[in-house]
């Protein structure tokens, strides 16, 4: 793989020679990259290239899949989060996640936001936490009068911002976002993107997106993943190029990246 200009800022994650398997099936091969602090890093690439898989490895969410296995190292502040002495539950408290489909809990808006705080037995003022988190997620003005209503009563875009508020309420250091706008209309998408710009002052953001314009709008760094056919007929994902977003889209070093970002395939 090619690692172009060195990422700016201090690294949060170092992914080192990672191979990922589901059972005997190799899903991702030999990925190495460094994800910088307080930046937005985007993963782009065609379907099945392993970008979501890698993302979920960053907070050990793939542990929920029984057949999942990882080789190599993923360090978070220089500690391998796959070391046996690491508690994955604690990892997920530091590294939050926002999913593709808005997935509020079947609870009130208020209870959705404070869920994570209750998990960690937060001793502070919950009302204050709700307001602060919803304000940061740019949702407060729309919901402040109906905090007791179900999270499902909101529109799709509002639900997604509620999920973001829920994630940042536990003050993670990193927010992982798995195609957070793919189920949203363009206006809601824009709101979530503006939100990412604001959030990166306090958080490190890693986003998977199918939308290349979105990557150019929000990301400082972009990683292009691709899938290649294996002799056995499967597909294995790998990292093609990782660089500043403007380089990936302006002057990519790899032909495959050039083809993808110019719309010639994918």
């Amino acid at each position, binding site marked *: 793989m090619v690692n172009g200009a060195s990422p700016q800022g201090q690294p949060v994650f170092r992914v080192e020679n990672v191979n990922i398997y589901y059972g005997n099936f190799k899903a991702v091969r030999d990925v190495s990259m460094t994800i910088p602090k307080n930046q937005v890093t985007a993963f782009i690439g065609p379907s099945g290239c392993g970008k979501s898989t890698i993302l979920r490895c960053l907070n050990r969410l793939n542990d*929920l899949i*029984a057949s999942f296995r990882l080789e190599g190292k993923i360090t978070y502040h220089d500690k391998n989060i796959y070391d046996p002495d690491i508690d994955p539950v604690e990892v*997920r*408290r530091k590294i*939050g996640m926002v999913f593709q489909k808005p997935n509020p*809990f*079947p609870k009130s808006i208020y209870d959705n936001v404070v869920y994570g705080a209750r*998990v*960690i037995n937060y001793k502070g003022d919950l009302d204050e936490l709700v307001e602060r988190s919803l304000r940061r997620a740019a949702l407060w003005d729309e919901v402040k009068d109906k905090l007791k209503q179900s999270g499902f009563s909101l529109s799709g875009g509002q639900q997604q911002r509620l999920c973001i508020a829920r*994630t940042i309420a536990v003050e993670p250091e990193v927010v992982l976002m798995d195609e957070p706008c793919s189920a949203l209309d363009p206006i809601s998408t824009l709101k979530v993107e503006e939100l990412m710009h604001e959030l990166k002052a306090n958080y490190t953001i890693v986003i998977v997106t199918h939308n290349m314009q979105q990557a150019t709008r929000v990301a400082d760094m972009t990683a292009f993943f691709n899938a290649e056919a294996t002799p056995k007929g499967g597909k294995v994902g790998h990292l093609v190029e990782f660089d500043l977003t403007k380089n990936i889209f302006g002057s990519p070093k790899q032909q495959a990246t050039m083809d993808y970002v110019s719309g010639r395939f994918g």
Partner: protein
Amino acid sequence: MTTATLNPQVAGLIKRPQLRNWVGWVMTGLVGLCALLTIIPLFAVLGFVLVRGISRFSLTLFTQLPPPPGLSGGGFGNAFIGTIIVVLLGTLISVPFGVLTAVYLSEFSSTKAQKEVARWVRFGINVLAGVPSIIAGVFAYGLFVTTGIFGYSAAAAGVALAVLMLPTIVRTTDEALKIVPQEVRWASVGLGASNYYTTLRVVLPAALPSILTGVILAMARAVGDTAALIFTALFSSFWPRGLLEPIATLSVLVYNFATVPFKPQQELAWAASFFLVMLILVASVASRLVIRRQPMR
């Protein structure tokens, strides 16, 4: 004016008698008839029981004891209370076991070995669901009555009914938990919640309406069951005296009184039948209503 001339392409589309159409109509009629025939038994039973049972229906039914042979009047108050006690006992025993079993099957069997266990448990539950209720009765009889642990009693009957209710509760809860979207579990785990916390605070509450439906359906089955009670609850002409004493129940009352030669007893049996049928009908409708109010899409 002139008859409209159709484009030859369109003319072929006009309906005309064809064998294909005739067969279609006949078959539609046939399956429709079968569908009608299927619901006739339901309405026949409802109608018959209504006609025979309603004449005797009054509030005193629920407050008085059955009359001694030869006398008239009275009610099935003891059997009414007895059924409530026995079914509640069965529910209290089967719900914790059933729901927790389903939670294991759906939420906590992740490794290969655990999945294998879950597969066998599911198989066992399906077999148990097919076990005739009289076997459940004989089981509780053998376990508690012949050994003298309880003797004929409400407690033994509760255990027999719990055995009957267990498969329904496990299966409906298992299904209810599976319907909860995976994303909701991920969201909770992604916020740093443990598996246990996620199940307790998110998955179970989301599945609660469906679980309640399963419990209601299982209770409806237990209310109507007779075979499991004949060997265990036995019967009693008196008010319930305790969980370790024989106890009257509505279904056994129907079984006992329907065939005796005394008219008042027969009437009581009909009234009890009517009440049981209505109870089960209401339970079925109630369970539908609960399902419809599901918060999850």
